[in-house]
């Protein structure tokens, strides 16, 4: 029985034409080839990745041996090939964060002598953000003379992640003179440095006085003012007490909460009056009010149960 004639008066559909057949065949062949290539790629890359892992670990071991020799005072020449040099650079970046004092200075000097510092500076001006970030990391490994200029420039990079990497690098260097630059970058309206990255870097540099945080105390950006309070609290900057008490009167709940936490950490009983005044005065959110109560109780060495 011919269903075609029963249903539609022997109509011949137009979709079955030689052109369509050709296109369909091409699609079928292409799909089949795609699947076969993918199957081969999956299985072969799985096997190759094991080999690659072995090669990479050997290369890293060789790079580590070079760097250990540098630290031991018997510096060899850096390898010449770009892949090996990249392995040395990556290993130096990783190890440099774990080295201190003379060892770190020796490594930095060797990296500079072997051209890695120049390479880092070039990378920090690269087109791609990832290259600039890698350049910043390598630059820190080469840093022994505290010449941080190129890193300070990167605090205003157009890519936010590069700015964060630069802040971390400055924090790692532990140079407290970088703090005002970090604060300014965080408070900037154009390409601002993420406040959390700035705060973490500043804590790492550990300034000894609240004065180092400079413009952050008077910043109109509540995130920056809160950052100053948090940093002062964590670093126990006792000269920040009066500034923190002033921040309690801020109209921003976030700033008030940070100031209360910081005052509790400083533990100066003279701050209790300012906290109790703020508790009486303002119309504050429950969480901030709770924070003020906790701080007040802490200053009196009492555990607060809400």
């Amino acid at each position, binding site marked *: 029985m011919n269903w075609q004639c029963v249903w539609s008066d022997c109509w011949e559909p137009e*979709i*079955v034409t030689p052109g369509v057949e050709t296109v369909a065949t091409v699609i079928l062949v292409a*799909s089949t080839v795609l699947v076969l290539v993918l199957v081969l790629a999956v299985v072969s890359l799985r*096997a190759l*990745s094991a080999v690659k892992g072995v090669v990479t670990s050997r290369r890293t071991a060789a790079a580590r041996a070079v760097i250990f020799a540098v630290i031991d005072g018997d510096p060899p020449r850096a390898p010449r090939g770009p892949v090996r040099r990249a392995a040395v650079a990556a290993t130096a970046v990783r190890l440099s964060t774990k080295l201190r004092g003379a060892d770190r200075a020796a490594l930095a000097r060797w990296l500079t002598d072997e051209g890695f510092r120049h390479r880092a500076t070039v990378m920090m001006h690269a087109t791609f953000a*990832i290259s600039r970030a890698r350049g910043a990391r390598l630059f820190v490994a080469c840093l022994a003379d505290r010449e941080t200029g190129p890193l300070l420039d990167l605090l205003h990079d157009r890519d936010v992640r590069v700015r*964060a990497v630069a802040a971390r690098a400055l924090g790692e260097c532990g140079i407290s003179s970088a703090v005002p630059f970090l604060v300014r970058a965080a408070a900037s309206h154009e390409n601002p440095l993420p406040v959390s990255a700035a705060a973490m870097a500043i804590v790492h540099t550990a300034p000894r006085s609240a004065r180092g945080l400079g413009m952050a105390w008077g910043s109109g950006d509540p995130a920056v003012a809160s950052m100053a309070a948090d940093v002062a609290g964590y670093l126990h900057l006792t000269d920040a007490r009066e500034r923190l008490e002033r921040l309690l009167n801020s109209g921003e709940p976030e700033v008030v909460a940070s100031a209360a936490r910081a005052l509790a950490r400083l533990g100066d009983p003279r701050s209790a009056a300012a906290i109790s005044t703020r508790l009486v005065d303002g119309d504050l959110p429950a969480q901030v009010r709770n924070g003020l109560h906790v701080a007040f109780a802490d200053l009196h060495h009492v555990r607060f149960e809400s």
Partner: protein
Amino acid sequence: MSILEVTFTTVTAVAIVYYAVHHLIFGSVVIRAALHVGREQRWADETAQSLTFANPLAPGVSVIVPAHNEEAGILPSVRSLLDAHYPTLEIIVVDDGSTDATAQLLIDEFELEPRDVPVVDSRVKQVGHMIATYRSRRHPGLVLLRKESVGRRSDAVNAGFARCTQPLVCMIDGDSILEPDALLRVAQPFVDDPRVVAAGGVVLPSNGSSVERGRVADARVPRTWLERTQVLEYMRAFLVGRAGWSASNGLMIISGAFGVFRREAIAEVGGLDEQSLAEDAELVVAIHRSHRARGEGYRVVFLADPVCWSETPSTVSVLAKQRRRWSHGLGEMLEKHRSMILRPRYGRLGMVTMPYFWLFELWGPLVEVLGLTAAVTGVLTGWVDPWVFWLFIAVSFLLSIAVSLAALLVEVVAFGRYQRVRDTSRLAAAAILEPFWFRPMHWWWRIRGLWASLRHERASWGEMKRTGFGGEA
């Protein structure tokens, strides 16, 4: 031409255009995903994570663990959180009306004692009555809330959210295990970019893997084809789908099994929608919506590196319920936010992601069945040569297999979590077999979910029989 001929020609033409558009969009998503994962891999910076870990000013994370009858896996799950590498961590387990020993196991294991845990954010409401609150004597950051269940996971999460105190909020399931550095990795974008309001990581099935002391010690592919196919599905959804959508800031879903949000972003949309079955997607869309409405720059990101291992259904009946529920929830959510669809003010989300999900994820199974029916009708009536029909089926299957293999390739090249070549081969085999047996079942489950959403059926969270993590208690 008769009416039947016109109908046939129209359905065939629509099906061809539909398939072509679907594969074009998804092809671009696959390419974007590969580029995104590759780029993120190059940015990976262990030093940054070490510095974050060592820094007292790293933003604290409150992890909310909603648990309903999770006695099989709750202890390893909480242990994995207690062992997580993160400087400031608060863990809030919400026992949502469990009838098993979930709460008692926690109380005994972690020395929990009844203590007040105050509400700190009243913008998020909970419906179920709070029964009791506990704090651990041994782990100061560990809290247990016991509440009556209203049949929705979202209410349990809201109860936890109202009491959490940290600026970042992470949600994971009660049967999930976080990799030790997963929180560090997923929190790093929040440190590096203040515009990031939400971040999701990868969820992979823990079935088949061995778990020791709250950690996945050896990632292995599960034994059954049903579970293996789910591993592939998760890879496809996360390593291709979410990575690809995230690359264009059009990510619509962050899994409820592993997502981190800025606390303020959740609070300003009133928490999770208590009525929604797709509360995770609903939350992300609401966050997109509120930020777009204010014209604020923001990012919702996906990270392919941090992993949360979660137990997935091991039987067809449980999987069927789960997939029906997902489809039902997707339909409800898209219906609720239909005013965002094809509205340029909502950017890629409104112009591409949501229409894509509506057209291809929600209605896809029905259109595919209609297309198949048309093709079969065409063969029976002689309007379509049988070879064209088989070619249509073959191309459809091959492209489906190619997408799964592409996801597997991304996993193999970028991460290699499954170390054995044998496991990779099994997953490749599962990818090839999937269209023949799993896909038709999946169509049916999704069509039932679509039907339920069209009828506005009210559904609650289903029960899943847990087997736990390799017998670990």
